[in-house]
């Protein structure tokens, strides 16, 4: 028993040493954007041109918050949420992406029509059409969580 424990400890220790030697020696990139940004969607390349984000190695231009970026922001969030966190607290994401949300994001943000917000007022009828055209878009938020309300009709 003791021999096994000793061997396991040695293996773990060696494993940790090897793993640590693999860790990048580079410094972490800035946790927050150093300057306050204006209201509205930022166009990063306006200031950063063709530069790349240090540590992320991606072009600043690829973070320009165009309509296409906002619609496909999951790719960035899935790959590198730390770059999102430079400007957004997690509560910003939670306005829409909660496992259980208190109210429609469009109601919570009723004073912010500039923000993309699913299910604007009047969606109760429209969801019966959207759901037939593309039910997979519903699944992303309601497939595994945030679907207590759905069960009222969809038993």
């Amino acid at each position, binding site marked *: 028993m003791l021999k096994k424990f000793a061997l396991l400890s040695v293996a773990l220790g060696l494993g940790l040493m090897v793993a640590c030697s693999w860790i990048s020696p580079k410094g*972490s990139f800035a946790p927050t954007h150093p300057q306050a940004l204006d209201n509205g969607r930022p166009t990063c390349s306006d200031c950063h041109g063709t530069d*790349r984000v240090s540590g992320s190695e*991606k072009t600043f231009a690829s973070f320009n918050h165009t309509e296409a970026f906002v619609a496909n922001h999951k*790719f960035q969030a*899935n790959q590198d949420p730390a770059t999102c966190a*430079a400007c957004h607290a997690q509560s910003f994401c*939670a306005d829409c992406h909660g496992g259980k949300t208190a109210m429609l994001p469009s109601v919570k943000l009723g004073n912010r029509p500039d923000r993309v917000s699913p299910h*604007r007022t009047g969606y109760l009828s429209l969801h019966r059409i959207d759901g037939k055209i593309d039910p997979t878009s519903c699944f992303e938020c309601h497939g*595994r969580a945030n679907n207590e309300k759905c069960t009222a009709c969809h038993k």
Partner: protein
Amino acid sequence: MIYRTRLALLAALVAGTAMAQDVAFSTTSIAQAWTTKTPGFSDTTQVPLTEFVGVDATKLGGKEALSFHMYGWGMADLGDQSYIGGKHTGDLTYGYLQYDFKQANAQIKAGRIIVNQGLGPMALDGVEARTDLRYGFMVSAFAGTPVVFKNYSNNNQYFVAYQQDISFGGRFAWRTAKLGEIGVSYLQDGSHPAAGLTVPQPVDYTRKQLAADVKLDPCAFLDVAGRTVLNVASDQITVPGTDPSRIAEHDYKATAKVNEKISITGTYVERNFFSYYAGSTLPSLFNQDEQGTFKATGASLVWAALANLQIVGDVRRSERTSYGDATRAGGEARYTFTNAHVVAGAAYHQVNADDVLPVNAQFAAYSLSHSEERVWVMADRGAYSASLDMIRLHYDDADANPNLHGQSIESAIVGSLGYKAKDNLRLSADLSVEDNALTKSQVMALLRVQYTFGLAAKGGK
């Protein structure tokens, strides 16, 4: 167990904030009131009160790298309580300790976390860690107990929790300058699939997914991103005689910046229902046994016509085997006035879709085609702010569509007035008037109080 978890989180909250040097505390209180008038049913009045609370405490114990983050809400209904199904409800969205290393973008989170890496987002009570490795590699991993939401009463709820007993996964990626990043990720939800249970269960709430993702931006003018997700669970129950695809999803987009003012984006999505819906907690709606696929191709053009005017044109063609094809096309314009105190937007989209075939003789075939119009404006001057949002939907086949009760036009107007009493205290009141096919005329009033104190570094945008 739930009470012990809550107690532990409360203790972490108190201890965490007490040890912090910088604490940002934010609350949003929302009081709503509306009456629902549904033809054929008695009127109902809802008066829910909701409190959102967020805490970001940094420099815990004097350590720059250690922080605590929490966000949650509680709601009580002072009306007839039908809206939330009881007197009160609530949720802890997240609450975790975070340690950021100065080197390698390394980070550890522990508590109730929302995992975004790889195949997220998903909520779990557990641990997540990530670090950059040498030569452009990076690795992240997570493990914990999935947060199980109450979807059902009775037996099914038990089996959701039983099957989804543990979640784990991670992502391994390689990135290089002048090319981009490629990664593979794995996610497993639950260790008790339905097929392996001694008491047979028809629904499998578990899933095992393997994904490959890519982001290529070899220059500032081209950006390609996307992922392919595979369903790698080998023991799932299928309809006899069928061999559904194991590809859950292809989802890709490519953006080309034509010049400083114009960029074009193309998208492609393909989803196979059996694999994409794996592990759903709402199988009656997201039916894995539906044969066929969903595919969509789209394109959009963004034109920065002026420094403060952005115009977007977009089109999307989708195909669903069981319901036919649809094309959504339209545009949007956003204008920011020079002083940045007024922002306005307008959008129009037309959806042309195939007819839905009748399920039985009771209904005739009807069209899903419709159009959407939206105009909005928001302004602020000094301590005052205001916004107006108008939406109108026009359905082509309201007479035949049994869900629309003959109403071809639905509309909604939301107006809001705000007052910034102090730098950290903002009051706003919304009034919405909605006319839809289900609840007819509905007026909703909302009062919102937002209060923050401490050093909020980010997050409110």
